[in-house]
């Protein structure tokens, strides 16, 4: 009897740990989603900027706001910078995508493990009730 209750307690502790891990994973996934959203918006904005820059004449003045300073920039330079930023953001998005997939898989397996532990607890309790 006591051994089974000790085993029961252990199983419940195990369940708690797994539940904590799962909640952590879920928070990670939520963060991932947020960062992804931010990056997606930035990517859209940068593409808009690129479109506008393409429409500019060669001699138009382009400025960049760096802190409180508006700095004059070369059109070609601005173009190159914006393109590089777009590339960087897309790479980040891809990385985030893969990490999101990993997190989701881990979450899935954690859920299954939790289910198993719960089932064991139930069988234990059923056994205790019978005995």
């Amino acid at each position, binding site marked *: 009897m006591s051994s089974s209750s000790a085993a029961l307690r252990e199983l419940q502790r195990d369940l708690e740990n797994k539940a904590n891990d799962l909640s952590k994973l879920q928070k990670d996934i939520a963060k991932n989603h947020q960062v992804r959203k931010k990056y997606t918006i930035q990517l859209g904005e940068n593409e808009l900027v690129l479109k506008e*820059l393409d429409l500019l004449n060669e001699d138009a003045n382009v400025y960049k706001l760096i802190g409180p300073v508006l700095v004059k920039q070369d059109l070609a330079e601005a173009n190159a910078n914006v393109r590089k930023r777009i590339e960087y953001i897309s790479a980040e998005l891809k990385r985030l995508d893969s990490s999101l997939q990993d997190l989701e898989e881990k979450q899935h397996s954690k859920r299954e493990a939790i289910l198993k532990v719960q089932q064991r607890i139930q069988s234990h309790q059923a056994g205790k009730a019978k005995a």
Partner: protein
Amino acid sequence: MGKPEVKGTVTSLSSMFPPEEVQKAAKMVEEKLSEKQNEMNQLKEFIADNTSLVNLVQKLPDELHHDIMVPFGKAAFFPGGLIHTNEFLVLLGESYYADRTAKQTVEILKRRGKSLMSKVDALKAEMQDLKAEASFFDSTTSEVAEDLVEIKEYEEDNSTERVFQSGPAELESPTLAEADNKMDSKLGASKDDEYARLMSRLDELEKEELAAEDDGENDEDEDEDANATETDGDENELTEAAFQWKKDEGYSSRDHGQRYSECTGLTAEPVTQGEMSHGRIIHQDSKMLNPSINASVPSEKKPVQTSKSEFDSSKAFTGSIVEHTENLEKKIPGQNTTSSESSGSKPSKPVSRFKMQRK
């Protein structure tokens, strides 16, 4: 062939869709809807600002110099003037600015307005979907409140389900027969449609067979046999209880398509002694036949029982497959005994028409 036994369960909707959960779901949909509404309002504000800005930018270059009160800090103004009225420093995005004239600025602003409008349209579509969901939940809650009952019926043979909702819970299981009749009346129209559909399919198959005639007799035999089982199934369907036939409608055609292709595949195997074209044609046929087989395959047991009495048709479907191959083997060297049998057994149906053509 009598009707297969029908088992059924009667479950009240309130157990299928517990009212609290439905309410929760409805609330969630409402929340999402209000979120989208907020976003929509924001976007509309942006669009309004954009248009007013366009107007301003268009008006400014009218004068070389504007006298204005310039804001100074939080709570002060001083008199000043706007000069260079045709030069605008436009924010392109991501902290990039560009010098533009009024006309060019207006163009940029118009492009921004267009993208905003497209976002608004997308949001509207999403809101429509959410509203549809919300209305579904509302109707479900009202149905649950009325104590509607969901009646499931199972056909013994192939354990498929037909689910439909009937009136209040007075329709208990003894009146399942009534429910059957209701189904009959409801689906009578669809039955005719099915029949028409099957006929058109059979016409297509006929044409295919005629085309395949050039490929060789054996191929035809294969096709025939494949068609024979299908058409026999159809005939039986149409001659037997409509109820059973409609049951078959409810089957997932995929399932039967699979079985059917199994059948044809197996039939192909012993035959393809170097005749690869067989298998190919059969699979083509099986693909063609799959959609129309939903009615025929499940009851293939019965036609097998009636028309091909030499087969052990009372077993599972695989039993009939075996017989098929035997039949084919007999056929390939010699005659189309099976098809003649089958055509003899069902003379009245147009399906057997093209079998007779073979003779």
